[in-house]
């Protein structure tokens, strides 16, 4: 059944090429940069943002004064005015801030690619700086109505993202026979990659099945290792035209296709009130993403899938068409997510084991893989799917070298 859908996706992609030529491969990520990742970094979010952005520009070989576009996503404390004047950007003609926290990571690159492809700007910077390791947990702020229908959930003690996603995870286990071992497969693949990545928080801390199965609960059915890290850090990337990228320091990584996803009758994190709560935003983004692509899920060499919680991986594998509905958990079996498996994922360690910086490290790791410079490199990788937060209005990118 998975193969059938993959074939259909490829056919649809071929029909749609003419309408989407404007974005496809028109731009590329030419530079990436990051700060160290840690539980606590002494510098401010603003300073970390500037360091990551300047590192990305240096990586591209582009002067800060050439930057004329910025894109970020919500829960970012530093705005483009502060960043632009600190790093010494030129006159800025495009700026965008995408909503829904971790759902917006890939959309920053998408917005810059669209702006550059349509002549609104020439050199774009997307970034994320966050002190989630040493700063407060967002859900502890009871004065703010988080972007969920709080009146229907919070009084009952459904307080945290882990509780909200745990509800869908329990139902998914019930409907499709997914087990904690499947979630462990996800956690282990991410940890194994982190153990190969000196920049990862969990570089020197291996994970065993026994550790996972005896870990403390956060929200049953999710345990500690089903939850992402809490990290201080910042990352950035530089987007330019494909032509300009070919003159930069590294092999260009082209933005092949991009999409956002807000499904009909979706309710955000607490997507409990429609026909099928397990069909999340990834399904919506995927349809558009593949429709405009020259290749399909079967052609993806490596994937960077948003992993705030382990169950998001099987749900996303289904949504993005790597397997049929209900098969996402089984897909993780037999080392499928490891290097050499059917679909290596989160090769830097992801949010679960490298750093949780609202998914931006998945974008930069996708770029490294397609440059051939990953710490845990998938040999010969030329195509990469990068996704943003599943369970919130989301976004995704197809990158190719």
């Amino acid at each position, binding site marked *: 059944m998975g193969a059938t859908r993959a074939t259909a996706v490829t056919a649809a992609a071929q029909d749609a090429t003419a309408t989407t030529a404007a974005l496809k491969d028109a731009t590329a990520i030419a530079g990436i940069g990051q700060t160290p990742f840690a539980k606590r970094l002494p510098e401010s979010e603003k300073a970390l943002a500037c360091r990551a952005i300047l590192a990305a520009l240096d990586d591209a070989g582009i002067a800060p004064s050439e930057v004329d576009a910025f894109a970020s996503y919500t829960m970012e404390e530093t705005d483009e005015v502060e960043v632009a004047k600190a790093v010494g950007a030129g006159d800025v003609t495009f700026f965008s801030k995408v909503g829904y926290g971790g759902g917006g990571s890939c959309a920053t690159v998408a917005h810059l690619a669209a702006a550059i492809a349509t002549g609104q700007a020439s050199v774009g910077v997307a970034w994320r700086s966050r002190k989630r390791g040493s700063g407060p*947990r967002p859900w502890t702020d*009871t*004065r703010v109505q988080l972007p969920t229908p709080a*009146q229907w959930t919070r*009084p009952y*003690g459904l*307080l945290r993202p882990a*509780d909200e996603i745990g509800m869908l995870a329990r139902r998914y286990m*019930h409907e499709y026979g997914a087990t904690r071992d499947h979630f462990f497969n996800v956690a282990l693949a991410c940890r194994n990659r982190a153990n190969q990545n000196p920049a990862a928080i969990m570089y020197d801390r291996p994970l065993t099945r026994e550790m996972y199965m005896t870990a403390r609960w956060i929200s049953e059915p999710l345990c500690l290792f089903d939850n992402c890290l809490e990290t201080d850090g910042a990352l950035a990337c530089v987007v330019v035209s494909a032509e300009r990228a070919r003159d930069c320091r590294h092999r260009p990584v082209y933005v092949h296709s991009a999409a956002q996803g807000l499904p009909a009758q979706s309710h955000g994190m607490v997507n409990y009130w429609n026909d099928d709560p397990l069909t999340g935003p990834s399904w919506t983004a995927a349809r558009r993403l593949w429709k405009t692509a020259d290749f399909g899920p079967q052609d993806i060499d490596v994937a960077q899938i948003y992993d705030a919680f382990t169950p998001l991986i099987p749900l996303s594998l289904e949504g993005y068409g790597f397997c049929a509905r209900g098969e996402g958990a089984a897909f993780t079996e037999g080392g499928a997510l490891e290097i050499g498996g059917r679909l290596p994922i989160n090769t830097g360690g992801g949010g679960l084991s490298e750093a949780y910086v609202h998914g931006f490290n998945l974008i930069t790791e996708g770029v490294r893989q397609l440059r051939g410079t990953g710490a845990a490199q998938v040999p010969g990788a030329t195509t990469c799917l990068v996704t943003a937060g599943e369970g919130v209005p989301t976004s995704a990118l197809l990158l190719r070298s």
Partner: protein
Amino acid sequence: MTQPDTTTGGSGGSGRAEGVLPPVPDEDGAPFFDYAARGELRVQSCAGCGEPRFPPRPCCPHCQSFDSLWKKMSGRGRIWSYVVPHPPLLPAYAAQAPYNVVLVELADAPRIRLVGNLVASADAALNSVAPERIRIGTPVKAAFHRTDNGLTVVRWLLERP
């Protein structure tokens, strides 16, 4: 509306109800809580096409009518899913952890699933039913609990205790 400060301090062991977050209804949601205060579980439905919708909103996503009414439900449902939260939590919830949060599919409107707590009686603690008693598919019935701030929330009792 004031909310108790539950973000700071304390061991969290200061009593069951203290510091539990009250609902903060918006304009569309307010009638739900008004009916609950009268011991009725009602769901907003379109006055034009009759479709129930949740959460409440200004117009019908099926026929775009702005006219709505509040349909009385039997109060019967089944558990669609549930979680059992453990700390770290806000202090008032940590004091009752591990407790349950259930998602109940209404017998009269299966696509409407209400978040709530399965409790031993309407005013009992959030941890008053052992987690082992909770199963997906378990039949439950609505009960009404008046919170400290005067608003009434819907809770759930086992239909066969």
